[in-house]
């Protein structure tokens, strides 16, 4: 065996090892949750709100946290999506390629993507102090919106950059305005990608605890308005896990199973949509 063949073999083994390691981590996490959580997963846990002393071992469920998480994620993602599309359209359609403004915007988006969620939570808290808003569903949606805004902008921007320039030129040559090019050609072309961006943003939003820790508050009830605090699944898991009572800790694993199931379903949906071929 010569030197090149040895290098090739080592590289293949290292690659395989990394891939299998990743698979092992996923299997380990899912197995741990399944073993510890599924036996304690009950219909009451999914369908009922916590009753007095739930975190001390009394009866009830995490329905409030499931609904709260869905409210915050949906609201935040829709808010972020609106601004993400607008930003991506601006730097890809309204500005010429390689324009200095697009470079700066992309740089900022990259920095924002790397900022930990906790910092977004702290920023949301500061805004709440300034505008005298208390922890609520509205504040949570705002913070989650901020968190997913750069993530979705980056995805939509990357997808928009793959649209051939000649396609926009063809539409422009027929007399289409920038708005018509954007609405009738580019957004249509990247439609499956937009769905993927939405679902990835949603997956990130629903699983995040740090950004809502200070901003959404926590409540045993389902919020009836944007001004009311709301529970979220990640925070509910955190509170249950930190309880000294073993039964409550077990329920935390069951709640984690619900969260993982939601995230897994969303990821599978994202993969499904990203695999759908462009319609035209």
């Amino acid at each position, binding site marked *: 065996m010569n030197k090149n063949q040895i290098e090739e073999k080592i590289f293949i083994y290292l690659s395989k090892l990394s891939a299998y390691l990743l698979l092992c981590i996923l299997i380990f996490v899912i197995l741990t949750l399944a073993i510890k959580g599924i036996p304690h997963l009950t219909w009451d846990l999914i369908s009922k709100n916590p009753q007095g002393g739930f975190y001390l071992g009394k009866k009830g469920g995490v329905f409030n946290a499931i609904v709260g998480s869905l409210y915050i994620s949906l609201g935040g993602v829709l808010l972020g999506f609106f601004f993400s599309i607008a930003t991506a359209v601006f730097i890809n359609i309204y500005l*010429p*390629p*390689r*324009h200095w403004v697009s470079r700066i915007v992309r740089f900022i988006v990259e920095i924002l993507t790397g900022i930990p969620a906790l910092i977004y939570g702290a920023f949301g808290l500061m805004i709440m102090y300034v505008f005298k808003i208390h922890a609520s569903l509205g504040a949570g949606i705002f913070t989650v919106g901020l968190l997913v805004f750069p993530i979705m902008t980056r995805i939509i921007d990357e997808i928009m950059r793959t649209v*051939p*320039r*000649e*396609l*926009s*030129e*063809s*539409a*422009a*040559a*027929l*007399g*289409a*305005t920038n708005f*018509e090019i954007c609405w*009738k*050609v580019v957004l*249509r*072309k990247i439609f499956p990608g937009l769905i993927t961006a939405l679902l990835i943003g949603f997956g990130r939003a629903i699983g995040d605890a740090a950004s809502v820790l200070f901003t959404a508050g926590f409540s045993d009830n389902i919020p009836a308005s944007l001004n009311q605090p709301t529970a979220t699944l990640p925070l509910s898991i955190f509170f249950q896990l930190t309880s000294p009572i073993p039964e409550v800790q077990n329920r935390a694993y069951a709640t984690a199973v619900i969260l993982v199931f939601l995230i897994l379903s969303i990821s599978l949906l994202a993969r499904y949509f990203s695999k759908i071929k*462009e*319609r*035209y």
Partner: protein
Amino acid sequence: MNNHIQVVNFSLKIAKTPILKDINIIIPDKQLTVLIGPSGCGKTSFLKSLNRLMDLEERAEYSGKIMIDDENLLEITTDLPRIRKKMGLLLQKPYPLPMNIFENVAFGPRLNKKNKKELKQIVEFYLKEVSLWEEVKDKLYGSATELSVGQQQRLCLARCLAAEPEIILCDEPTSALDPFLQKKLKRNL
């Protein structure tokens, strides 16, 4: 014979790099005018300057005049779609828009506010003009990208003609086609 397009001392720079310098040309009305030159000499940039598509490039700077119907195109700043509607463009490769065959041909007329009934007639007429009607009449609402390259190029020609431009700018539209299709497209043109 009228002088339809008059280009006077036209120069183009992109990001400060000179692309075209002092171009002077008179393009007569109702005639086929051919620009010949080696690859990279600026033929495409010149064609795209005529309908101001070079504006989509980064920092395009023009000087000189491009006169069409006594109007200097380079002085227009706000109403570029009106100018572009006057000039159809056929590119080297066909780029069907991300919509069905019918919508592709109807795209230009739709921008010109044609009604539904007119659109149907226009689409049929121009697809027949480019000898594509028989091949696609049963799949008008199917994907345009599923057509062969030759069919896509003829579709793009139909789309271009359907917008009823005064001038058609062709940037080697037959280069990707086989000799038989080249002949067919040239005949259509």
